């Protein structure tokens, strides 16, 4: 994804001054949005962690590193993330290998199921593992009668592996399917054994992809909040420690300090991933992929069985949570019931929804539909607005970066891809510090949440817009301009229709993220705005696991419904290439 300064479009049409002005203004607005809603909160965090009473001090860091328990959150985080990275990368690599280099049956099924973790909040992995392997788990307690349970590091690692699997898979799948397989064939026809070919040819050619997938998994794990908060037990990691310091202890300074500490590995992993992705793209050959030789029966069977392993695990997670939301008392009483969908939660008020239903319904139903289901309606609302806003802004950013390239566009590019490096919890805390002031009227409303989700997911939106815009020949646009279309018309009537696919896939992406995101938004929910994904956490903290499962189920159903709708509109499955970061 290089920013080529010397475009082929040297023959650009005489720049009309109004167009230049428009491009500059658009870029100015985008830069202002990103600076104000991304840099400013992060700046506020750094400021709080380094300053005390206006003077520079390292006191916060001193108190962090001198407290053994807090310091452990750092080593815990690193340990969990490194182990998860190793396991996930290993499994995902051979899974991707099976999908791209062998002729196993059912590739589509494997691929589809492996993307499931993307449509649910990360917390679902934790919930399922607790139902199966918790202190009161179906397997640990009722099948094995053991006191062993999965709370702690083991639980976090297993859950994060499942959560990160599709993200690593996307990268490795792309890498392996893009590298020219004729090299392998050449090696084999020259007499190299299959193993030798694998280690000397296949593996080296995919090394950047592997490293980039590993960096991404590391980044995702170290920044995740949903999994450790449900399954961590007494095992604290950086992301949960920030929440505990801020929400539990009122220690904003320490929260900010830990945020800065968390920023270091997460930005590091991001930069590494970014650098390696570029390298790995350089290895991609434009050659059409030749026919895949039918695999030998042993290889075929081995890989078929192998691919079923992660797939089965992922399926079990989803089935468990589904079941858990419909049975009476897991694991004592498996009578089917809908009682957990009568959320023992406060719900809240949702615009329109509450007023309408409370005027139509009476008594129990009113309390259920009008108030308790309000967070779900809120989530839908927020997600629709995030989808429209996020997809439009990132398309605009991509358009400026790829097609217009005004001076200083590198700054816009850098700011656009940076959000992926900033952990959600850090962004959430930053938003409180920066925007909880009387004159920011958006604080405590929907709008701050909508803005936050758009900014946190800006990276992938922009990158996929750029990738799609690259495919449009500049000459089409030039033709439009020379035929007399003004820049707005060119964009809406020529560029937009051509990038519709990218736009709709961005809509799907932003919608999914808004429905499932937890880490940043948990700092921003208020009495007026409650969201479904956050209710899962509150229900779980309150000890209402079954209802937490039920809420998870509802979110999944809504996301799947959205995917079906988008598929009907665009005729394409929306999940391809939909990793959290690029």
């Amino acid at each position, binding site marked *: 994804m290089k920013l080529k300064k010397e475009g082929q479009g040297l023959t650009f049409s005489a720049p009309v001054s109004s167009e230049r002005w428009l491009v500059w203004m658009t870029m100015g607005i985008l830069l202002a949005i990103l600076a104000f809603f991304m840099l400013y909160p992060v700046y506020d965090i750094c400021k709080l962690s380094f300053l005390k009473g206006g003077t520079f001090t390292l006191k916060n860091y001193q108190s962090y590193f001198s*407290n053994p*328990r807090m310091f452990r959150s750092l080593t815990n985080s690193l340990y969990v993330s490194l182990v998860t990275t190793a396991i996930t990368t290993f499994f995902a690599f051979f899974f991707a290998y099976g999908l791209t280099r062998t002729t196993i049956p059912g590739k589509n099924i494997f691929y589809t199921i492996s993307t499931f973790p993307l449509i649910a909040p990360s917390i679902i992995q934790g919930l399922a593992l607790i139902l199966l392997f*918790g*202190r*009161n788990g179906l397997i640990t*307690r009722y099948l094995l009668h053991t006191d062993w349970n999965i*709370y702690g590091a083991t639980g976090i690692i297993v859950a994060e592996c499942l959560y990160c699997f599709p993200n690593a898979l996307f990268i490795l799948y792309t890498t392996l399917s893009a590298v020219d397989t004729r090299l392998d064939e050449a090696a084999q026809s020259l007499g190299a054994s299959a193993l030798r070919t694998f280690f000397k040819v296949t593996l080296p050619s995919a090394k950047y992809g592997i490293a980039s997938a590993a960096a991404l998994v590391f980044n995702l794990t170290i920044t995740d909040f949903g999994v450790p908060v449900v399954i961590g*037990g*007494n*095992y*604290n990691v950086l992301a949960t420690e920030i929440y505990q310091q*801020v*929400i*539990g*202890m*009122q220690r*904003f300074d320490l929260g900010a300090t830990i945020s800065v500490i968390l920023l270091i590995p997460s930005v590091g992993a991001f930069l590494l991933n970014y650098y390696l992705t570029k390298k790995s793209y350089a290895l991609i050959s434009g050659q059409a992929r030749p026919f895949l030789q039918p695999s030998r029966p042993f290889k075929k069977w081995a890989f078929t069985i192998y691919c079923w392993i992660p797939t089965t695990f992922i399926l079990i997670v989803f089935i468990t949570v589904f079941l858990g939301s419909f049975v009476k*008392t897991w694991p004592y009483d498996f009578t089917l019931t809908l009682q957990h969908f009568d959320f*023992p*939660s*406060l719900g*809240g*008020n949702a*615009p*329109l929804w*509450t*007023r309408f239903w*409370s005027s139509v319904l009476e*008594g129990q139903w009113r*309390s259920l539909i009008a*108030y*308790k289901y309000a967070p779900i309606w809120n989530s839908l*609302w927020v997600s*629709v*607005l995030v989808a*429209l806003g996020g997809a439009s802004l990132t398309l605009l950013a991509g358009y400026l970066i790829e097609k217009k390239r005004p001076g200083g566009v590198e700054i816009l590019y850098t700011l656009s891809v940076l959000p992926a490096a900033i952990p959600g919890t850090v962004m959430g805390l930053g938003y*409180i510090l920066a925007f*909880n*002031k*009387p004159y920011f009227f958006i*604080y*405590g409303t929907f709008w701050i949440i909508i803005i936050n989700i758009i900014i946190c997911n800006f990276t992938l939106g922009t990158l996929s817009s750029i990738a799609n815009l690259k495919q449009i020949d500049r000459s089409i646009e030039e033709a439009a301009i020379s035929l007399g279309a003004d820049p707005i018309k060119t964009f*809406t009537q020529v560029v937009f229709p051509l990038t519709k696919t990218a736009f709709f896939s961005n809509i799907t992406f932003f919608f999914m993220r808004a429905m499932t995101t937890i880490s940043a938004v948990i700092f921003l929910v*208020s*009495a*007026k705005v409650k969201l479904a994904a956050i209710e899962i956490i*509150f229900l779980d*903290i*309150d*000890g*209402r696991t079954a209802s937490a499962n039920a809420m998870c189920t509802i979110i999944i159903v809504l996301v799947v419904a959205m995917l079906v709708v988008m598929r009907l509109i665009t005729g394409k499955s929306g999940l391809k290439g939909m990793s959290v970061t690029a």
Partner: protein
Amino acid sequence: MKRKWTVLVISFVMGLFLAGVGLAKEKVTVYTSLETDEIVKYLEVARKDLPDLEIDIIRLSTGELGARMLAEKDNPQADCIWGWAVTNMEQFIPLNMLEPYKPKGVEKLEKRFVHPEYYYVGIDMYIAAFCVNTKVMKEKDLPMPKGWNDLLNPKFKGLIAMPNPVASGTGFLQVSSILQMYGAKEGKEDGWEFLKKLDKNIGQYIKSGSRPAKMTAQGEFAVGCSFDFVVAEQKKLGFPVEFVFPIEGAGYEIEANALMKGAKNPKAAKRFLDWAISENAMKEYAKFKYGVTLPGIPTRPDLPKLSEIKLYPMDFAWQAKNRDAILKKWESLFLR
């Protein structure tokens, strides 16, 4: 054609949203630490009694709610506090975060539960209790605990759940009552020594006062340190659990209401606070709580009589003064 549709859909959506905002009723934002189960029931009554009031609620554990309000100090998001520990209320008065308000009907309440300058008005009381899972007890052949001391038995190792006092008000009153019992007010450290011994048996510290009881009911622990009515609720749901009120003296806490200084909707908040000590409200509270501050309302029959429980005489002023120090020390010793 298509563009027209998009524009139409977007403007329709935006229009609906703005309409929803525009047609606002009178609104009040309430922060509370009452249990979710109760709030759901109370709100049904509140919405009937105050049909034109839109009540937005945030429910967080005692400690977390305090943190939130402190964070929002310069821009208070809440209009009033409902059912929050008096210990924490006391801490908020010197911080200038509460506004004295004398709700309608306050004269009917028992005097000792109302702040003399009306900074807060007490509504109810809750008492520390153990939730004991009799099935787990039988399986592991454990002796029935009578009080805190019995929980030191090494047989209970890993089988006790206790709330984290930093987040949970219940946890704080348990820790605070133990410290006071062992003479912390006279400067003795024995209470901390006791907690250190107890710590060896604690399976997990949980950031909620009710969850230890719920987890114990489901068989995850043998004993869950929790409070009165949550245990009664678990029993009512059919779980094999029993109450135990520690014989050394059970800690308790008063829950109170207050008006926030700088409330954005003071008028609506006052209406809500008036309702929150009305007879209708108190009758609902009494369906859950041990005692309410309005005399003459019968309490729930499935809880042991108050006269049969030995309450520890809690010193709320001392607690409020020392809360931060206690929590800091607790954290450094026990948080894993």
